[in-house]
């Protein structure tokens, strides 16, 4: 080997170690469309969004076991808009079953006690009625998972999320004190266990790491009701604003960019979106995103 070749390869190898995102970007679909639907019924706009994305059968294969991960973190009602709207979930569950899925599981690692949040959010009732398995996060089912991130490397994840074929992320768009916003990528905090508080040092980086290291097949952001202030718990109706929008895409970061725009914030100012952009998870420039607007 010549000296020149050696230097070339060593620079390449070291840079690829330094930028693990260059090799490890299998989780990021390129040029996927982002669908934004506006309308009066959360159920109808979700149906429309899935249809305009090309239908659920594009994502779900027959006999798949599907995990739907809404935000059920808080003991709050639908009107208080701290959890995912159950009607949005209803539309997704219907579509997933129609696409031929064998089994659907709904689960979240909650902040308040799950017995309370699942019930008050209205999600448990609608899911059970539709034949969906509702699971509580069980600390005995935590396994180490390698996110290969800069800040988050090995971290405990609930086995339930790793044992499924497809993973659908259904966050609710709302204000968040330390992360600025909570959308799709932040919602993935619900798959990890352990001392999650520790991840809040460099929260933006942690969020981007987790979103980058974990494969999300579809992200549907519920922004029908959004919590403008005092999130992520909220609790006051006057802090809630009706946006009547649903955003869906297979690219988690671009969904978040559009959702941040819907909320009224510049995506570049949200730390976790910035970090995700640095990891090349998608476009941060809205004009470059393949955005389609619909009404239903």
């Amino acid at each position, binding site marked *: 080997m010549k000296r020149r070749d050696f230097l070339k390869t060593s620079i390449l190898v070291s840079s690829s170690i330094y930028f693990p995102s260059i090799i490890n970007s299998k989780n990021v679909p390129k040029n996927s469309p982002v669908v934004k639907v506006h309308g009066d019924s959360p159920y109808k706009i979700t149906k429309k969004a899935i249809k305009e994305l090309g239908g659920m059968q594009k994502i779900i294969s027959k006999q798949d076991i599907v995990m739907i991960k809404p935000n059920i973190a808080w003991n709050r009602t639908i009107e208080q808009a701290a959890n995912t709207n159950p009607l949005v979930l209803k539309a997704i569950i219907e579509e997933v079953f129609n696409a031929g899925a064998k089994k659907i599981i709904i689960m979240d690692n909650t902040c308040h*006690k799950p017995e309370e949040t699942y019930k008050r959010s209205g999600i448990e009732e609608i899911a059970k009625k539709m034949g969906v398995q509702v699971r509580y996060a069980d600390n005995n089912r935590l396994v180490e998972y390698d996110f290969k991130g800069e800040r988050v490397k090995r971290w405990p994840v609930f086995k339930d999320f790793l044992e499924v074929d497809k993973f659908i992320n259904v966050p609710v768009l709302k204000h968040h004190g*330390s992360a600025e916003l909570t959308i799709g990528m932040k919602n993935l905090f619900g798959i990890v266990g352990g001392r999650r508080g520790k991840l809040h*040092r460099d929260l933006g980086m942690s969020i981007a790491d987790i979103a980058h290291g974990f494969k999300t097949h579809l992200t549907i952001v519920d922004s029908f009701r959004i919590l403008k202030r005092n999130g992520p718990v909220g609790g006051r109706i006057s802090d809630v604003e009706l946006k009547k929008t649903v955003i869906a895409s297979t690219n988690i970061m671009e969904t978040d960019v559009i959702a941040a725009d819907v909320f009224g914030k510049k995506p570049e100012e949200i730390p976790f979106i910035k970090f995700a952009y640095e990891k090349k998870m998608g476009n941060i420039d809205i004009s470059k995103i393949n955005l389609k607007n619909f009404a239903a």
Partner: protein
Amino acid sequence: MSSKNIKLIQTLRISSQILFLFLFYFLLIRTGKSNIEPSGYVDIFFYFDPLIFLLNIIATQAIQTLFLLSIIPLFLTLVFGRFFCGWVCPFGAINHFFSWIFKRSKKKNETINKNLLNLKYIILILIVIMAIMGTHIGGWLDPFSILFRSSTIAVNPAVNYSIEHSLKEGANDKSIVKKGLKPIYEFTKKNILKTEQKVYFQSILIGMIFLLIIFLNFFKRRFFCNYICPLGALYGLIAKFSFFNLKVNENKCKSCNLCSNNCTYNGSPFKDYMKSECLVCFNCLKDCPENSIEIKFAIPKKKNRTSIDLGRRKVVGSILSGIFISAFPRISNITKSKRHKFLRPPGSVSEKQFLQKCIRCGECMQVCPTNLIQPCFLESGIEGIWTPVLKPNIGYCEYECNRCTQICPTNAIEKLTIEEKKKFKIGTAVIDRNRCYTYVDGYNCGVCEEHCPVPDKAIRFREVEVWNFEGKLKKVKQIYVVTDLCIGCGICENVCPRSDHPAIYITAEEEQREFNY
């Protein structure tokens, strides 16, 4: 009475005991299932407890209407004697069961131990006198309190743990035996078990006391009921005047004294029958080979009354020592202490009243969905042992919950609506500036701000520049507490990521209830 009828009565008595035991545990487990709102009747057993009623009247000089129900068993006692102990009391049923398990052939010359039997009356006098003097400790010895407390803090969590760790492993296993266990596991999981294992600091102490009480039955039948129970003593005092009586038909009796074989207090209707000790269990009727024992209802005449022979000296002695003992908590250093470190549940009355009203039953601990309410040890003085205190390190006060305020049978925790509870100030959050990441390390953290349930946020951010550990100035969203908005729910302390000691914690500062002894 024919032997057939005797058998029927025996079956009735045992089924009644089982029924009330099941009812007690059904209500107890129902109280603890957190997705069921408490509906007022889970604490019903306490309302039928005249001892608690009596002590509550003495302590608070007021009558709680629901406690008037406890007059019913008192009246029934006048007719049937201490039927309550033998037929109804769930703790009595447990003791009865274990006395039966530990049954052995009767030792020769085992006779009534009158001194031991009198102990419970002395305890009753002590408790009442101490209550009059302002120290309310009846809850430590009241049978319902003991049973509820032991079940909540020790028995149920232990059962929960064993089922989770034996059956659950089995539920995932493929062997036939364990597959058979799966439905049992799923049933218990759905109806009895908690989603989350409850933990209590004093499980071991309370559990051991419970075991001790059960094992005492090995030495004497129904040890606790006969020799310690102050409620039994109260019923005994009334049973003295009851219409109920057991009579030996002297034409039939052959003086074999077999009737004393299974008597709960080692007595017999044949020889020294004691109405106030008889638990109306009818074992003697069953044991009599000649069917010579008869149940008689008659107006008790003065000369027929079996006296409780306590003796003047014992009565005076116990009254005087009651007065003496009750002074100790009043002169403990805590009464003069200017500060206190413990938190009481939302809706608690002022500390002095709280200690007088609380019967240490542990219903609030059972009903708390987050395990926040824990039995106190010495934080609030010897007098306060097993009263509820809040430990935000273990749980937090759920913003949308008021269950502990609904459940308290003696209103030591006053009834609050959810809206009132949301405004009730348990304490105040204090930031430890030597620990908080946003103060010392120059890190953004904000987990406490995120969880703060007050709509206006009692924990807020301000942008400041902090010297981090590299000696550089860094812009940080630093937290601060708005004392007027903070309700002291403790979720900030609970979620603080510090591993050693929380950087934000709740103290009794500015607590809403009055704190005066």
